[in-house]
């Protein structure tokens, strides 16, 4: 981004994921977004991986004992598709983001990179969407896909696959992009996650 015309697209997870901090702050200042305290990391659980087998102990280590640790609370939840959620809670949004990054990074560094699916943030949206209908305090998820290194909004309207608020997602996607978030360019990649445990 400098005068040498370097990175036009973020190459690593942190530079992509951290765009969410600024975008969130701007939208919150505009009164469009309120963060919840929750976020999560979802990955394909692999019992043959020792780090993942002892995930609770390992994360306690990573999140509580390290220097500059954010002391973010976490919980572990398994879903019925062989996926494991690390659910994190922190009142400070930028702490929450860096913890999410840290958790994903720790899993990735310990031979789990291929199984990392997504990081998910929960936020509330208020505003008018594309078809001129108004949403107030709508629960939205901002999904970060590790394989695409990009975000997209996800607004489920039910528990079943395919039930989502597309006009709200499209509107939010435009706004987020405008405010500097690394948004997934291809809409067909905006895959949902139904049954998020937070």
């Amino acid at each position: 981004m400098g005068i040498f015309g370097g990175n036009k697209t973020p190459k690593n997870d942190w530079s992509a994921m951290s765009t969410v901090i600024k975008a969130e702050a701007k939208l919150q200042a505009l009164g469009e977004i309120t963060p919840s305290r929750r976020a999560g990391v979802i990955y394909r659980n692999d019992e043959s991986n020792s780090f993942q087998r002892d995930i609770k102990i390992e994360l306690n280590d990573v999140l509580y004992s390290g220097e500059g640790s954010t002391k973010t609370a976490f919980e572990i939840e398994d879903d019925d598709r062989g996926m494991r959620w690390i659910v994190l809670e922190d009142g400070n949004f930028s702490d929450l983001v860096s913890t999410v990054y840290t958790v994903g990074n720790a899993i990735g560094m310990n031979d789990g990179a291929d199984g990392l699916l997504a990081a998910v943030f929960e936020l509330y949206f208020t505003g008018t969407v594309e078809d001129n209908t108004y949403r107030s305090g709508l629960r939205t998820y901002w999904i970060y896909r590790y394989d695409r290194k990009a975000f997209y909004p996800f607004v489920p309207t039910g528990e079943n696959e395919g039930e989502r608020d597309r006009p709200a997602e499209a509107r939010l996607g435009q706004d987020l992009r405008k405010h500097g978030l690394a948004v997934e360019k291809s809409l067909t990649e905006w895959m949902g996650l139904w049954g998020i445990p937070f």
Partner: protein
Amino acid sequence: MTSTSTRKFHKDRGLVTRMYFTMFMLGFLYAVFALFLMAAGMQLMFIGGIVGIMVVVQYYMSDKLILRSTGAKEVTAEQEPALHKMVKQLADRYEMPMPKIAVIETAIPNAFATGRNPQNALVAVTTGIQQRLNERELQAVIGHELAHVANRDMRVLAVANFLVTVTSFLMTMLFWNMLFGGMGGRRNNNGGGVMMVYLVTIIVYFIGQLLVLALTRYREYGADHTGAEICGDPGALADALEKISGTVNNIPDKDLRKLQTANAFLIIPAALKGEGSMNLFSTHPPLEERVKRLRELEQRMRYGLR
């Protein structure tokens, strides 16, 4: 944002190369075909003459023909002051004279430009697109249409279409010729020859059609690019395209967890992306791809890269 109001547009080099290659292939195809026809004893001048007149009429009358066939009504500055002002500003940036402006009364969002050169250009928008887009997006759409005029796309496609039309004309004639053995009873001594010429014509027609479609798509990307440079806001056209095409429906039903399992076995589909056979038949490039390119251009422009 830095000023972009220079006349020289930054060209997408890969695109320009592909475009010229396609045009070259098209020219080559028809040159060979003409030689073949002459060798087979066909009277080229006659067919070329008829089609030529048709194309010239279309070329010079295109604005009037289109006004008539679409029900577009030309509007004055008094009738549509905002639209007039917007078009005027854009035309100034392209350094072209003020084009005629027309409005089509329909809810379907659309816009087009026509005219053989900037002096005879016409821009038309539907009332549907006026209602649906905001000012920034409408400006991007008109910028795209004026780019077609500035890039002389009508002329390029008129020539390309001329050749394809000649072939299709010839195909029809040969077909009736074979059925009824017209043209002075040459059927008996030349039956096999006509069949041969007919088959070659069909093949040339098919290849020519594909090349013209490819060329059209390249011109479309080109207009996206030029328009974005002129407006300085590639994201605006991307937003507009998404809004009017209902691409919201491209947001999938699928759960992300399913992808992970399926993806391990999908090696070929990724390789098949791009110029797949589906794309060959569509005049406009896939919208997703256009939007993606515009978003990339937006990023490059935002960070001052070229």
